[in-house]
């Protein structure tokens, strides 16, 4: 079996026309990721919104700094822990996105706010 070639086509991010499912666009909301302004759909998991914006690395593992991202999608693993509105270790694969949310990548285990 020879080498598989074929370039990677620019990704069509949001599914607009789908033969079976209709994704009538939900309410669009704005949020920030590490200071950058991004758009998403109200109520969709933060990870889905990040993914739609091309963000796939959600954290680095605290022990050996390995890149981690969306994985189990049912809130059972520790791959998508981010700091949301100041609270660390939020599972963004199940946490619904809301208008104005501040989403940040964590350094190591994440900082607990003590103010």
């Amino acid at each position: 079996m020879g080498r598989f070639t074929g370039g990677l086509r620019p990704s069509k991010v949001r599914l607009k026309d789908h033969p079976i499912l209709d994704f009538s666009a939900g309410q669009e909301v704005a949020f920030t990721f590490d200071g950058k302004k991004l758009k998403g759909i109200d109520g969709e998991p933060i990870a889905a919104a990040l993914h739609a914006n091309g963000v796939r690395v959600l954290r680095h593992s605290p022990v050996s700094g390995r890149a981690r991202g969306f994985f189990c999608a049912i809130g059972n693993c520790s791959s998508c822990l981010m700091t949301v509105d100041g609270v660390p270790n939020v599972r963004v694969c199940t946490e619904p996105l809301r208008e104005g949310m501040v989403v940040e990548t964590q350094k190591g285990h994440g900082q607990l706010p003590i103010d």
Partner: protein
Amino acid sequence: MTDRPERIDDDVIVCRCEDVTLGDIRRLIANGYHTIDEIKRISRAGMGQCQGRTCRHLIARELATALGVSVEEVEMPTFRPPTRPVLLSTIARGEGDE
């Protein structure tokens, strides 16, 4: 810790929460840690936020092959509450909405 022959997949990640590799697990088994509980306690594999959901089966299989028993005979640690991490503030709030 005595060592044993390196194998190609030794640096594959088994426990994603604590970055424990297959090589780490094999070294512990070679050094006499023959239960999942002992391996958990000394390497932290299974102590992370997912409470071993991913790694416990992989460790059980590695133990089964190393000890020459079937996976069925490997004693599995139990699961304890909570099934997923829950905020202390949520517990303290209880039913109330405030």
